[in-house]
């Protein structure tokens, strides 16, 4: 038996995002032995097909078009619907990224199907495919199943383990020509703010600063700590609103959702909207001078103290650890 499952590989700056490999792993589970078909949409993207195959896709269908060089809802939905029309899948998986959040509901509407958004896991249980997803700003979870039609879900980055990369796997990469047209939205300008370096939503270590960081310079010690740990710097809304850092660093309900192995919150009080973006992190460390701060309720380890003392000391200790390792 098994299902044929399509999985969208998301391309950014010419390479596949990690969430795509995680989505392939989810698609494998959903396929239950059936075929997993990778889909690539963009300009000159078919060359990335072999990488999707190395991560577990059986084959890949690419739509290469200059009209897909930038993401637009209309362009990508036309292309994806064309692939769906050709393949007739029984399952469809996308990443729950800005692109996936924008595109998936439109595809679900066109298919007249359900859609399970922001899944953090999928498993076969008692003859059903059961998806788990956070609800109520991360304060609760629900388990959901599809009762009618295609099994369609978006998966939260950094939660589902990708399969081991195996460059010896082979699979066909075909292209499909799609006449992408009548785009109703035109992108006039893109202001890139997201900093170079480690992608915040995919980072294994995140050092986040809040209003307690007090200034733009206050972020420097956090950056040094992040460098030592190979991590990324993030922030609370409070720090962004106070203009200590750019909004692209914001973590939370309105910002990025992160699930690193280690999250170190420095001078962040722990408002629910912030927790919604990080409470799934494996280990949470809180550094705050207020022992009553809410962040300590979700922290695994806490230090009550001044972050400007604690953070540089941490950096030094981690440096020693690296030298001894």
């Amino acid at each position, binding site marked *: 038996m098994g299902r044929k499952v399509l999985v969208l590989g998301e391309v950014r700056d010419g390479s596949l995002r990690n969430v795509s490999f995680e989505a392939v792993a989810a698609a494998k589970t959903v396929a239950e032995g059936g075929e997993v078909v990778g889909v690539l949409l963009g300009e000159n993207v078919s060359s990335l097909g072999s990488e999707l195959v190395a991560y577990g896709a059986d084959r890949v269908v690419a739509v290469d078009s200059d009209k897909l060089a930038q993401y637009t*809802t209309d362009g990508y939905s036309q292309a994806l619907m064309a692939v769906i029309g050709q393949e007739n899948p029984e399952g469809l998986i996308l990443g729950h990224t*800005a692109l996936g959040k924008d595109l*998936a*509901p*439109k595809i*679900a*509407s*066109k298919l*007249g199907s*359900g*859609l*399970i*958004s922001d899944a953090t896991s999928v498993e076969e249980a008692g003859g059903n495919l059961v998806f788990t*997803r*956070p*609800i*109520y700003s991360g*304060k*609760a*979870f*629900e*388990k*959901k*199943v*599809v*009762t*009618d*039609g295609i099994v369609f879900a978006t998966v939260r980055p950094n939660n589902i383990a990708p399969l081991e990369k195996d460059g010896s796997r082979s699979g066909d990469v075909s292209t499909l020509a799609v006449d992408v047209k009548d785009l*109703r*939205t035109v*992108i*006039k*300008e*893109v*202001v890139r703010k*997201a900093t170079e370096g480690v992608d915040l*939503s995919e980072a294994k270590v995140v050092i986040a600063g809040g209003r307690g960081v007090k200034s733009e310079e206050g972020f420097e010690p956090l950056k040094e700590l992040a460098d030592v740990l190979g991590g990324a710097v993030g922030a609370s809304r409070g720090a962004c609103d106070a203009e200590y850092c750019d909004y*692209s*660093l914001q973590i939370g309900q*309105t*910002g*990025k959702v992160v699930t690193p192995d*280690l999250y170190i919150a420095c001078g962040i009080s722990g408002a*629910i909207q912030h927790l919604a973006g990080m409470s799934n992190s*494996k*280990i949470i*460390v809180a550094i705050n001078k207020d022992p009553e701060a809410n962040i*300590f309720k*979700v*922290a*695994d*380890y*806490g*230090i009550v103290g001044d972050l400007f003392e*604690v953070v540089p*000391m*941490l950096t030094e*200790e*981690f440096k020693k*650890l690296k030298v001894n390792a």
Partner: protein
Amino acid sequence: MNIYVLMKRTFDTEEKIAISGGKINEEGAEFIINPYDEYAIEEAIQVRDANGGEVTVISVGNEEGEKQLRTALAMGADKAVLINIEDDVEDGDQYTTAKILAEYLKDKEADLILAGNVAIDGGSGQVGPRVADALDMAYVTTITNLEINGSTATVTRDVEGDSEVIETSLPLLVTAQQGLNEPRYPSLPGIMKAKKKPLEELELDDLDLEEDDVEAKTKTIEIYLPPQKEAGRVLEGELADQVKELVNLLHSEAKVV
């Protein structure tokens, strides 16, 4: 301009959450306008004030939603519509809600529809885009700025911290992101006026929909709270020792570095 806002009444997730009988316990809980829908309402009022027209706020739910709709009217919306499906639909999902909203909107000739980018309880972010697609309308999600000039719109979209400036034309649906505006509080005269503003209540029948037409495509089989985290360990002693201990714990116990 003919402006509509999609508004969800939600559980205030700042409150404590408890589960009883396999459901979120709503007894005594605080309900609010979904915060992202407040941005949508505020923006709708500003667009109307600049361009003329009328703002209608629609909500699908039960009769309790009247309270939040009155608040929207008190902020300055002109009309409200409550689609009360309590007696007709048992377990709806996003397919259900979007289908009902689209059915209501299909002959309303909306120029602009505003929704929230996500509901803080259900959290899927599906309803806005689904409604737009069903109406064959263009949409832009997670917007932080909207400028309307005749029949064209220039929209700024937040894309994981980057921003895109997008040009498009009406009719259009947008979903609001934090940063779009500062929602106003209802004023006292606003609250008084709101009592007299029209609030229409409809049921599925009025939309020529049968229960089967809106039957959910997905089902929740379990709701649970995350396992209570063991109380975190707040370290003690000299700061320098705490720092050493923390690094040690992260390395040897938690094994994350």
